[in-house]
């Protein structure tokens, strides 16, 4: 049972291969949003390093959002095509869940959503307790938690400190493909994977600016 996993929802591109729940390898690139050019070369290189053929992969797990709209689409377009051509299922993973997975205690995960908002959810010992939502920066910084993680936490560090003096900013890495793979494996065990690539959907959490302007939120 081999899983190819990736996260393209943030500026922390990350690709991993797992054997069931165990990590075989992970490549992280601190290059920003270069998913379109770098996702497949990274996949290809990692498979070669592990002496695997793409036909050895049994499942693709990838983040469906929230995060960079373009990043998500690049990742999911590739996922659809790979699942279709290799005839394997897809495990949809929420980007926030992967980042929150390994934090202990009460944690807020936040991905910078730009325009004064943060895509966020609250976790207890790695388990999500709230629906992912697009919060104002103030709402996010005021969440009653012990730990903040994500590029939203880094970006709004000062505001968090002022609203939430007791809380810590996690120092954990923001590259999350290994966690995406783990969560994908859980979905596979629970038979919650997607067999039909037409049914792989993104999770944007926010309408386009044009729609917001026209109809409000």
């Amino acid at each position, binding site marked *: 049972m081999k899983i190819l996993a990736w996260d393209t929802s943030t500026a922390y591109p990350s690709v991993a291969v797992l054997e069931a729940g165990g990590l075989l390898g992970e490549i992280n690139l601190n290059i920003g949003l270069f998913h379109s050019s770098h996702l497949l070369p990274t996949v290809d290189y990692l498979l070669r390093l592990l002496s695997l053929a793409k036909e050895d992969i049994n499942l693709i797990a990838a983040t469906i959002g929230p995060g960079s*709209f373009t990043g998500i689409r690049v990742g999911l377009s590739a996922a659809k*095509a790979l699942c279709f051509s290799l005839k394997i299922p897809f495990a949809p993973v929420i980007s926030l869940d992967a980042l929150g997975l390994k934090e202990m205690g009460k944690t807020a995960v936040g991905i910078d959503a730009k325009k004064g908002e943060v895509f966020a959810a609250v976790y207890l010992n790695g388990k999500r307790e709230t629906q992912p939502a697009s919060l104002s920066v103030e709402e996010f910084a005021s969440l009653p938690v012990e730990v903040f993680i994500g590029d939203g936490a880094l970006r709004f560090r000062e505001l968090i400190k002022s609203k939430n003096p007791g809380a810590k900013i996690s120092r954990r890495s923001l590259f999350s493909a290994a966690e995406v793979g783990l969560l994908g494996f859980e979905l596979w065990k629970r038979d919650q994977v997607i067999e039909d690539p037409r049914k792989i959907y993104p999770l944007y959490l926010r309408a386009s600016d044009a729609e917001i302007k026209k109809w409000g939120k």
Partner: protein
Amino acid sequence: MLLAIETSCDETAAAVVHQGRILSSVVRSQVDLFKEFGGIVPEISSRRHLELIQVIVEETLSRAGKGIEDMEAVAATKKPGLIGSLLVGYSYAKALAYGLGVSLVGVDHLHAHVYSAEIGRKFRFPLLGVVVSGGHTAAYMVEGLSFRVVARTRDDAAGEALDKVAKKLGLGYPGGPVIERMAKGGDPYAYDFPVVRLKDGSLDFSYSGLKSQAIRIIEREEVKGEKLRDFLASFQRAVMDQIIDRLDALVERYKPASLAVTGGVSINSHLRERVEKFSAQKGLALYLPEKRFCGDNAAMIGYLGEKLLEAGYREDLFSTPFPRTEASKGVKQFAK
């Protein structure tokens, strides 16, 4: 046999092409989504492409009676276009080729428009290839697979001018087809829009002056009823006048053996009649695309894609789409 994918603008399209023959071609237009906005919204368009890409690919394969494993290569539009839209089709195509273990070929959307006129025929070279659409108005001298831009628009594209004037009149989007329909029977010389030539002597196109002139008239007088028909007939005539004017000068300068007029606006019967007359006068062979290949489609991407593959073109895993080309509007120099 290859699968072609086109998502450069607001059409999600796929086609199966084999040795120059189009086995199937599916185009799903997003036009309805944008009627309320009076034009394309890139983010909405990108979202729609992602929803549709797999659906359209499967529909295209089943219409051709083929399976995905029958595909020996994948072709996709690489440039130019809306980058968010291009990224969906190109990322899909790149991963598909990788998954199948076949070659990927990246296709220039405008070159493909030119070649849409060759489907089922054989070009005679040197060819003056013209693309007239909503995003572009450009001319190339073409010799096989080599394209040299000889004119492009400095500002608006011809279709864009039609779209913007229609929008100003509240006639909806896209404007080209509405204007053609409503201009029928109107007097094309009721309003005299003069042909604009650029002061620097270049043969580039320019439609912003004509568009502004039309909009000023709309703001000044009430253009309605009979008058509207005359106004639209005159405006349409003027848009096409400029094309014929430039073709005339380009033919003088570059002495092509033949002429192809392509792109979304080339479906317009007024334009078709005029280029037919023009090429007959000049003794040029004329190629006009079949109507179903005028607007954006993937058949033309696959058709040119096959030729590029035969000539040895391939994309590597790092390749990524690009929003502009040397024929994009306003581009003077293009760094590869």
